[in-house]
């Protein structure tokens, strides 16, 4: 991760802490909190909203960086990669839980525009799905925008669950991630859809009632 990104992440975390004290904090106050000149802050961010948005984008960048240090990450299964994405983000949010509680839905979940976090999150989902060769042929065909959109929506629901999770060590959230990602993997790895598609295709081309008589066998 380059120095500028690291600095931006640090400043955005200062902004998150400041937000809890004063939701309308000034850039000067942020400068003081981050031990930087106000002008320097403006080199990185144009306004307060930009700082708060970057808090979430920064989490994804930190997550991405962490995957490089996981030994054997490329061999992880689909459920392990999806689980790692969700769990790492939750781990990174944990020290800023109060801030997430106050801002997630406004800045990420229900935002009228598409927030930068969501764009990056969908890109990451695309990268995970497209790099997995164990999926069935048919499920690969579904690796499209609606799938990534649904995946992002599921993540929002997970965050809502986690924010209400009072179990020790947030074990319930871990279990939910484990169960959900295992289910998704089961769907994507199952060859039953491929078999079903083969049967449907065969019947379509070979049915005596079909006008199209091109045989596939």
């Amino acid at each position, binding site marked *: 991760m380059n120095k500028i990104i690291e600095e931006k992440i640090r400043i955005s975390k200062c902004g998150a802490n400041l937000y809890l004290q004063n939701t309308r904090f000034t850039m000067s106050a942020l400068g003081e909190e981050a031990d930087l000149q106000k002008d320097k802050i403006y080199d990185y961010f144009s306004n307060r909203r930009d700082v708060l948005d970057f808090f979430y984008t920064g989490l994804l960048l930190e997550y991405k960086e962490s995957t490089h240090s996981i030994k054997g990450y490329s061999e992880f299964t689909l*459920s392990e990669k999806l689980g790692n994405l969700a769990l*790492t983000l939750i781990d990174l949010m944990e020290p800023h839980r109060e801030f997430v509680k106050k801002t997630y839905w406004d800045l990420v979940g229900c935002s009228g525009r598409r927030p930068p976090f969501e764009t990056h999150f969908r890109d990451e989902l695309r990268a995970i799905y497209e790099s997995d060769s164990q999926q069935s042929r048919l499920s690969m065909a579904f690796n499209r925008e609606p799938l990534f959109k649904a995946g992002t929506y599921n993540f929002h629901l997970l965050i809502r669950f986690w924010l209400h999770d009072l179990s020790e060590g*947030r074990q319930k959230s*871990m*279990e939910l991630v484990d169960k959900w990602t295992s*289910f998704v993997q089961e769907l994507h790895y199952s060859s039953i859809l491929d078999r079903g598609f083969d049967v449907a295709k065969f019947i379509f081309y070979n049915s005596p009632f079909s006008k199209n008589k091109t045989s596939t066998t």
Partner: protein
Amino acid sequence: MSDFPSSKYDRGKIFAKTGLKVGTSYAKHYLKNLRGSSDERNSEFYGQTAQQIFSEFTKLRGTALKIAQSLSIDQGLLPDEFSEVMTQAQYSVPPINRSLVRSIIKRELGGYPEQIFKSFDSTAIAAASIGQVHRAELKTGEKVAVKIQYPGVRDTIASDLGLAKSLFKRIISNKDELDEYFEEVESTLRKETDYIHEGETINRFHERFSSDRYETPRWIEDFSTERVLTMTYLEGVHLKEFLDSDPSQEEKDHFGQLIWDFFHEQVRDSDEIHADTHPGNFLFTNDGKLGIIDFGCVKNFPDSFFIDYLRLLPTHLNRDLEEIKELYFRLGVLKDDPETNEKEKEYFEFCLNYGFTFAMPYQSDTYDFGDPEYRDMIRGYTKNAPIGNEARGNKHFLYSTRVHLGLYHFLMKLGAMVQTKKSREVVEERISEEVG
């Protein structure tokens, strides 16, 4: 890499599904047998059914898998093929998702494995009922084993025991007395899920036993929490791999003697007894030591029970029927005079003969646990136990029997010849100390 079913519904569903699968298999088997039966066919059938049960039970992990482990120890209660397959449950259930492992470590130890350890093998070397073990290296270069508890496993204790209890209450007539057995199991399982408690136990056993005969790990407290346990790594092989290597009788006797002595040294001190005597918890090291690796289930039996339990040995060896009868009364096995009550007589005769068989290894100075006749006798008693519809005996029998039976089955599987003279003296000394 399956998910962990922690809700009552999920777990109940797996119980039901297993029942259905087994029921279907039995129906198929019955139809096949109508066309003539054979032992070979039975063996194949039991093996397949056991595999089905095993694959479903391993999904449950937690308490249900603990029950499977107990069944694998009490050989004779199940056909050989079942016991063999259930033994796998001791250290080879499917591991959990690798990303979940990372996250658990982060939450518990404050950093991801790659930040905390010099190296961390994300593939588990053993996965059992409550947690799984990973090999790692500390930044100091020390090799360690990191045990990680499955998330939500504590919650399953109450729900699984609740399921089991409601099942037993349908069968058992003295329902009220059942509670104390379940309380004993529940409190033991709760302790097993507290890895700080286990870490402290590891250190006490290390102090007591680490020597030129036994190897026990050291607890690495700085890298441990209630759900993550780090200890020094022990090299060695389990019983199965040891037997697969075609060892000499001398080697078998050597390790058999070590485990026999380990058990009796605990009797001598009687502070704490390792109460999980199954093959997954012991290692045979290259330098001929016995490695003991799991300290989750360690019991402190109260003297009031333990001394009476030990007294069963000399009284059976001396065939002192009056004293034996008195002991069984005190231990809650007998409820009425066997001379006048037919049911009590049946229990007494069974216990008496089982006791004589159990005392046999102590009768002479050396005993051959490889003797197939002895194995058949022990199995015969388990099979023919007068199982009534009431709970009997002191609640501490649950674990004392587990230790004892576990030890005998371990030695029988090993086929070891063991010197027993010294151990007989240990038991007698322990009793006389208490009486004195």
